[in-house]
């Protein structure tokens, strides 16, 4: 009789020296294959296939060498010179040279999509010698930090295909990186959507104990993922519900980690039209939300952060002013706003599929009801949600927009330049906030920071205060990355600078 017990061997197989790391994610892995323009979940795979010049170590809070072995800045932070590592080969077979590196950065800048904005200060990228890369900037900019960015900073072989067809070549499921793993099989609709195999010519070498294969498995249901890791069928689960994670703590077959991240959930109020255009109205809504309650409802999966910048980044201020729950204040703000008392319906949009955002939406809807405000909650696909927020006519847009944000490199600039800088056509500034003082301050802050850390931190404080006064947004929480791995794996560090990325090469099976 066939054995019907679900016996399962752990992620390693019997063949000698061969071991597979299975990464379990909840949504489609590769939404884009292009290292210049990708900006989504594919980061979990791209960071295995591609590398950047430098990498940010969140433990030491330092930028560490990767494809660049050393660097220096001159001219007041406007010129950066990188010495590249020798003996690095692209997966296409060609060697890494400064010319190749310059070509990849220039392509990213030219295409100007995804995270290309991080190179906004750059005026030119040149390769004076085979292994020397020079980057000139229009104003002082922390290029060493920027080149460690999680998106838009990959160094790849632009000659993998003729220039006009390079985008298509990537889209067909090829990779041209220098990383430890390269694409083996790509089956987007299958359970195991993607497998990568070890790149034998990787500059780091393969001595010692390494995983030789990385597989990405997609399980949309968290409950399924929990059972898979319990049974050893996957090595790492990206995200579970707080309840499921708690149930895993203490199980002998798994190890659990919980680390604060730099990912926060921001509520954007429509300052351009509708009732939210009124500052007192926004303050009324901000003080009607039960922040402590929302965090409690998530049962340990999130923490409350004052202000906009999460802990661990420069400019974080634990004593930043924040709005707290106060129904009396809310009612008085509401009166001050001149609210007539008629039934006002607010539209709230969030990204469908995210259970935590759904929870926040339900709670906000319930908490605004006592003020006489009806909230219509719409769960939309991200693309749809975003399109609605960018509608040409301001009245077609939503009143409240929920969105996660996290930095591209270890610096709070990403929040301010993307979310709070005035925009002629809305992109990510989805409260449509436009404050000339704040705009000017944001324009200065990176240069200030590059010169003096304390001056930069102080300026960030000022900006946060200014924004607090206008209340165009409110921050609900900062995510805690709660991961589950199979027990035997050693060496896992959760690096918030590379959200959800597991540097598999550094793990020991």
């Amino acid at each position, binding site marked *: 009789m066939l*054995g019907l017990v*679900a016996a399962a061997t752990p992620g390693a197989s019997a063949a000698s020296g061969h071991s597979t790391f299975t990464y379990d994610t909840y949504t489609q892995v590769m939404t884009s294959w292009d290292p210049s323009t990708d900006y989504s979940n594919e980061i979990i795979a791209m960071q295995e296939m591609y590398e950047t010049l430098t990498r940010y170590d969140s433990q030491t809070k330092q930028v560490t060498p990767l494809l660049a072995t050393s660097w220096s800045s001159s001219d007041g932070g406007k010129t950066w010179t990188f010495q590249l590592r020798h003996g690095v080969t692209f997966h296409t077979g060609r060697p890494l040279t400064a010319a190749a590196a310059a070509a990849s950065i220039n392509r990213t800048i030219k295409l100007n999509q995804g995270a290309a904005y991080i190179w906004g200060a750059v005026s030119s990228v040149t390769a004076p010698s085979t292994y020397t890369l020079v980057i000139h900037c229009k104003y002082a900019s922390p290029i060493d930090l920027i080149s460690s960015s999680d998106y838009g900073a990959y160094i790849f072989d632009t000659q993998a295909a003729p220039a006009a067809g390079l985008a298509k070549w990537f889209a067909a499921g090829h990779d041209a990186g220098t990383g430890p793993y390269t694409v083996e099989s790509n089956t987007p609709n299958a359970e195991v959507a993607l497998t990568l195999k070890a790149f034998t010519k990787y500059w780091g070498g393969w001595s010692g104990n390494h995983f030789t294969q990385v597989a990405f*498995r997609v399980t949309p249901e968290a409950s399924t993922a929990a059972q898979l890791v319990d049974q050893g069928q996957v090595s790492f689960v990206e995200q579970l519900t707080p309840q499921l994670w708690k149930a895993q703590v203490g199980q002998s077959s798994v190890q659990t980690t919980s680390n604060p991240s730099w990912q926060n959930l921001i509520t954007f109020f429509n300052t351009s039209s509708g009732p939210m255009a009124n500052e007192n109205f926004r303050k009324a809504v901000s003080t009607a939300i039960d922040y402590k309650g929302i965090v409690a409802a998530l049962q340990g999966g999130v923490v409350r952060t004052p202000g906009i910048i999460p802990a661990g980044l420069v400019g974080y201020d634990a004593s930043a002013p924040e709005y707290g729950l106060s129904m009396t204040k809310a009612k008085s703000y509401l009166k001050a706003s001149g609210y007539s008392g008629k039934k006002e319906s607010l539209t709230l949009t969030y990204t469908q599929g995210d259970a935590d955002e759904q929870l926040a939406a339900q709670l906000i809807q319930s908490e605004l009801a006592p003020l006489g405000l009806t909230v219509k909650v719409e769960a939309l696909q991200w693309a749809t949600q975003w399109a609605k927020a960018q509608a040409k006519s301001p009245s077609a847009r939503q009143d409240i927009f929920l969105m996660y944000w996290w930095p591209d490199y270890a610096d709070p600039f990403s929040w301010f330049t993307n979310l709070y800088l005035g925009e002629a056509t809305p992109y990510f500034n989805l409260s449509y906030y436009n404050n000339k003082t704040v705009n000017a301050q944001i324009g200065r802050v990176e240069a200030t920071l590059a010169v003096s850390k304390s001056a930069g931190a102080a300026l960030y404080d000022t900006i946060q205060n200014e924004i607090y006064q206008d209340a165009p947004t409110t921050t609900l929480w900062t995510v805690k990355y709660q991961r589950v791995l199979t027990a035997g794996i050693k060496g896992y560090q959760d690096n918030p600078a590379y959200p959800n990325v597991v540097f598999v090469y550094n793990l020991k099976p």
Partner: protein
Amino acid sequence: MTRYALRRVGLSIIVVSGVMVLTFLISHVIPADPAVNWAGPHASASQIARARVILGLNRPVWSQILHYFSGILSGNWGISIRTHRSVLSDLMQAVPASLELVGAAIAIAVVVGIPLGLVSARYAVKFPDHFVRLFAVIGVSMPAFWLALILQLVFSRDLHWFPTAGEYNPVLAYAHPIPHITGIPLIDGLLRWDWPLVTSSLQHLVLPACVVASYPVGVVTRMVRAKVLEVSEETHSQMIRSLGFSERALLGRFSLRLAWSPVVQVLALVFAYSLANTFLVEAVFDWPGLGNYAAQSIETLDVPAIAGVTLFVAMVYVILNLLVDLAQALFDPRVLIS
């Protein structure tokens, strides 16, 4: 016979064309802007405009319909907004898994439903009959998605008898390559004597197949009972009784054969219904079939894919019905008269 066959085939073609019009209407009556979905998140305005052209949204409606029809006939069922691949190839990839699931469910329905129906008819009105009838009506009243969750909770999580999700254990693929002949792991494993694969496939198949089988089992049981009782009341059955054959012989040897035809018809109907029912079950069990594909397409508002799945299942249904009608005409010429 040929005239009948031609008429039926002609009818089927009309019906399929009508369904194509339906799916065209559905895929072009879209609230959200499909071009934005296609271009993806973080897309620029020019990329969205280009997507509009690719999707043909800038053409007049009649031109779109013609384009749609000619596309379907030539194998171009559109590009999935979510996976960015041809819908037809997505469907072809997903079909074997659904076939495996629905096939197993129908097999369970036949193996369990027919004996139950016979028992119910044999002991009509007495306790076993009531018990079986209750069981059958629960089967057709069962919300499939709920049963899937409950079974998963009890048999997989609590009792650890069966695995939670998937078609087979993907870890097997690392040890040695999975044979890929039909695309159905169970059959491929049998064809290649790959026993670990066969075992794993069967383990993973049990729970989802049981859930999908709940409705067919109910239907088959009730149908067999009704038909057998109907037949056993007829004059020829009374004659058989008067000749001294036992009730058991009557039910087994004589009535069942006559009850067969409507049961086969019902199975074809049930097959199509179950194919649609898998939408609810496959998502829970992570089964990589049409249902999962459809569920994910619905979630992402991937309209070309939704339209493609609808059209595909409708075509399967029409072809099945056509085959059943033709087979019936072959065996029972009375059909040709109507």
